[in-house]
């Protein structure tokens, strides 16, 4: 039991750090990213950047938020009981 709890804390912390780093990078390179987002005619295939960013953030930040609530003891109701 204790081992799982420690593992959960570590995983949550790691995912939280990754998520924070992603947000930091997004705002640090804000101008570059917004430059890419100006549409196909101006920046060619870089217009797809927002979509890729959204997918990456959803995986990392999504996993973090899931772990976050679990750590606080909020879980889905167990099925088949």
């Amino acid at each position: 039991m204790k081992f799982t709890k420690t593992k959960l804390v570590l995983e949550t912390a790691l995912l939280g750090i990754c998520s924070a780093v992603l947000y930091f990078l997004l705002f640090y390179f804000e101008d570059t990213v917004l430059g890419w987002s100006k549409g196909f005619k101006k920046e060619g295939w870089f217009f797809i950047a927002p979509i890729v960013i959204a997918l990456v953030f959803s995986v990392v930040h999504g996993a973090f938020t899931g772990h976050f609530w679990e750590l606080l003891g909020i879980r889905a109701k167990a099925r088949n009981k």
Partner: protein
Amino acid sequence: MEFIDLSLTSVLFLFFVGFIGGLVSGFIGSGGAFVLTPAMMSMGLPAIVAVASNMCHKFPKALVGAVKRASFGQVDVKLGIVMGIPAEIGVTVGISVQTAIKGAYGDAGSNLYVSLVFVIVLAIVGGYVLRDAWKSNKSGNEDEEQVNKVARWLRSVHIPATMVYFRSINARVSILFILPLGFATGLLAAAIAVGGFIGVPAMIYVLGVPSLMASATELVIAFIMGMGGSIEFAWSGFVDVRLAMVILAGSLFGIQLGAMGTTYVEPNMIKLVMGVIMILVLLSRAIVIPVYLSTLGYIEKLTEGTISVLRVASFSTLALALVVGGGIILFSLWRGVRAEIERREEIEKALVVE
């Protein structure tokens, strides 16, 4: 397209609205967009950037929600894809209808169109959903959802080469019946940003999908529509990814909670929350209709004071819709989690005594 500077207040505001929006979407399959778009426009964003950035947070949110609810066995991926593809076409058609109306009647005309669609659709569908939730609540038959006549008839029709088996209804239905439902969902999504107000009731009442699975499957449709729409908007350079990611930051916290909330409630609760939100949104749109009518010259000119009072009242009702929905979900979750924790403690105590 120029992008705006973000202040700390607007970041915090978007995070918070994102959280509540996520909470509601995780639970009923969609929601949040109807408050976020006008809120972002009031921050000085052009309407199209507000819609585009909002959509760019919607599809990753729907993805996370769909994965979470799939882990509870609530998602019918096949149905989601079969409805999602025509929905995407519906969005494209809906956008061109919007553009045509805007070209012919200007902003007020397009606003009037959106508000009328809102009021008519929500009055019929929202009223029906609420009445159904009320009736099942009264009959005390909350656990069992009955398949109605329409759904039974649809299953009895066999059109060769179009029959597809869907796990959520454990039956085969002709794809020809499902395509128009998906298309209507997309059309509505383009008009009012919440396709789920058609998609979820259509799955429940026309196809006979249980409400828990319908609201979960809507997340797959929202993902497909949102991703397609975001690519279209990004192609033209309308997506402000910073805004989208700030909303996403909040909404991913919310969607996890909303999704978990569905495991604690009676299926009827989904209908209740959805119906209440739909009726409040309807009210909010009905309040501003006189403003557009007066701008278009159909009724006497309203004074500036009256217009601003109506606008504030309308936006407050929208926000109220989201807060009430979020409140019911949080309350149900809190009650459910507490009961679950007590149950586990009792089991542990019993084990210790043994």
